[in-house]
């Protein structure tokens, strides 16, 4: 899992280590962190499990915490038995009251006289209990995806047993992810992080015991005692906690305001984190969040795939899904970030154009191997950091991808200029007129020579078609017909891997840079029986 950490660091999410301190609650040490220096304190009570250090390795979590600490002094902690806090004897579990008292202990240690309390998921009943017990120390209450009674709104006893069995038998593998964030299951990087999150937040036994303990939560009786101004936020299709739970809270907590927002992933740090942060900020500061003008210069890569081989729905859908998984993996491997999808357009963002082009080349190879057609566009410009890329840079890049031919990587000339010295090769591809630009945009095509022609390779003498084996000749002529590796494999009854080896050997023997060049070679040398 070292790779995860590396990529997080590279992606800039781990900005700096935050100092972890420990508050003494009875005889148990509770780990806490304080970030930001806003005029009021905001205590974040996490859900089921947490790990203070690990949060900063996830982009969504970091985004949420950065937003919150911009207007508050944000106090974070791991509940006893989880994360960096002391472990507890699983035979003598702390009551909800004891865990609530940990909030007070952390506030005392951090010098917080009164604070706004943000309770997420299982943290919500705890936050409500705190607000009812210590009204003088509760400035306001913000509850996200909360509930007052576990069995009524989270899961009935029979489903709980199945969940606990999963937790006990597959803990640490990320097996609980579908129960919390089904929208992120296909995100291999996040799924891996989730596995680490499980392992580093609680042991398997503790997880099962915590789940059982949470199942006993019923704070319905204390709701009328809450006097703090209260905001309730719930995602309309939350898979973990029924939105009805927050509607009930809205009826029972005096003056509470409920905002239902779109989305189904449950953890507060997944989905549209900014929407949640906006609501909390406006509620706690009394002022709408200032529109975040965070714009950065970035290289955007838009990858467009299509079913040119008329594969049929089922095969296309399988291959397309396989390609999407590969796309996520390769974008991460090249230091990029997934920026979203737009129909059949997959958008990723990179810090530099060379990385985007290298990733595009890897994606082109992957598409070829999987047996689908790809066309890609790369452009550089300012983009909004928030949300999916929708600005001019994104629109231009999307249009480049739709203009690109099959297997091509079409980039603005600016990309080539900025990538000078990177060892990448581009050929001029003229200018194209785009709807929103006053003048035609000069464009280039990225070629993948650098993969196949190391600078030090001695110049071989011009090759003759005779140097190809009979099988290689067959493969060349099929390449010339525009067929993918998968199609060639099917026709010659070979595995795709074997075809790939043949193609690589052919390019080496003929000293050619690409499949396209091999096709051209084949056309030049075609005799009555082919090359």
């Amino acid at each position, binding site marked *: 899992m070292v790779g995860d950490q590396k990529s997080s660091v590279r992606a800039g999410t781990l900005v700096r280590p935050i100092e972890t301190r420990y508050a003494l609650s009875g005889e148990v040490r509770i780990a806490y962190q*304080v970030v930001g220096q806003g005029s009021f304190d905001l205590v974040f009570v996490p859900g089921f499990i947490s790990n203070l250090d690990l949060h900063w390795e996830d982009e969504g979590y970091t985004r949420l915490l950065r937003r919150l600490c911009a207007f508050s002094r944000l106090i974070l902690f791991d509940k006893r038995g989880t994360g960096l806090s002391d472990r507890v004897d699983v035979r003598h579990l702390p009551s909800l009251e004891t865990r609530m008292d940990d909030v007070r202990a952390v506030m005392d240690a951090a*010098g917080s006289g009164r604070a706004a309390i943000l309770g997420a998921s299982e943290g919500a009943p705890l936050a409500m209990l705190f607000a009812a017990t210590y009204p003088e120390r509760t400035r306001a209450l913000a509850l996200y995806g909360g509930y007052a009674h576990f069995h009524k709104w989270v899961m009935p006893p029979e489903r709980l047993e199945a969940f606990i069995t999963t937790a006990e038998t597959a803990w640490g593998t990320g097996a609980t992810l579908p129960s919390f964030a089904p929208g992120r299951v296909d995100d291999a990087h996040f799924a891996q992080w989730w596995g680490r999150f499980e392992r580093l937040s609680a042991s398997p036994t503790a997880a099962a015991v915590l789940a059982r303990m949470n199942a006993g939560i019923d704070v319905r009786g204390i709701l009328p005692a809450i006097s703090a101004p209260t905001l309730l936020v719930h995602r309309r299709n939350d898979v973990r906690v029924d939105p009805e739970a927050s509607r009930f809270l809205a009826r029972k907590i005096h003056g509470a305001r409920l905002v239902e927002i779109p989305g189904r992933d449950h953890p507060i740090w997944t989905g549209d984190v900014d929407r949640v942060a906006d609501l909390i900020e406006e509620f706690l500061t009394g002022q709408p969040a200032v529109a975040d003008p965070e714009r950065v210069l970035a290289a955007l890569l838009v990858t467009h795939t299509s079913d040119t081989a008329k594969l049929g729905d089922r095969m296309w859908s399988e291959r397309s899904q396989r390609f999407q998984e590969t796309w996520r993996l390769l974008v991460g491997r090249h230091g990029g970030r997934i920026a979203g999808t737009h129909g059949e357009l997959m958008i990723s963002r990179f810090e530099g154009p060379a990385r985007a082009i290298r990733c595009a080349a890897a994606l082109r190879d992957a598409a070829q191997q999987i047996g689908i057609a790809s066309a890609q566009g790369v452009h550089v410009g300012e983009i909004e950091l928030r949300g999916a890329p929708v600005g001019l840079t994104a629109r231009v890049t999307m249009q480049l991808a739709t203009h690109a031919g099959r297997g091509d990587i079409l980039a603005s000339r600016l990309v080539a200029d900025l990538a000078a010295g990177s060892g990448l090769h581009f050929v001029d591809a003229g200018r194209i007129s785009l709807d929103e630009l006053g003048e035609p945009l000069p464009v280039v095509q990225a070629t993948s020579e650098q993969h196949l022609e190391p600078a030090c390779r001695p110049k071989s003498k011009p090759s003759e078609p005779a140097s190809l084996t009979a099988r290689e000749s067959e493969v060349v002529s099929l390449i010339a017909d525009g067929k993918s590796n998968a199609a060639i494999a099917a026709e010659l009854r070979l595995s795709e891997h074997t075809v790939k080896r043949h193609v690589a050997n052919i390019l080496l023997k003929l000293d050619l840079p690409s499949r396209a060049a091999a096709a051209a070679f084949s056309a030049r040398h075609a005799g009555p029986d082919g090359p």
Partner: protein
Amino acid sequence: MLTKTQNVDGPAIKKAIEGRDGKMLSSFYADDALVRVIDRNNPPSKPREIRGRAAIGTFWDDICSRAMTHKVDTTIADGDNLAFTQACAYPDGTKVFCAAMLELKNGRIARQTVVQAWDE
């Protein structure tokens, strides 16, 4: 109101801040005063702004609710301008340092800019 007779000057500000007297502090401001806070999370191009005496009152109430020590060190006065530095510490040892520049109008604070840094 007693506070109406309180002059806004270095010693009064020092006494109110060090005594964590939120009510006294908010009485120092003009009705339409503006406090701007610049720090790591609120950069100069997007400072946090607190407008009006009511919001500023809440601001000081929040700060004064913290169990922390404040020490106002250097106060400089020049006509309607006042500047001071403030060193603060939380019970767990975390330190905060602020420098504040104030503009007075009719004896009340009309505009204040705070630049702060802290241990994290």
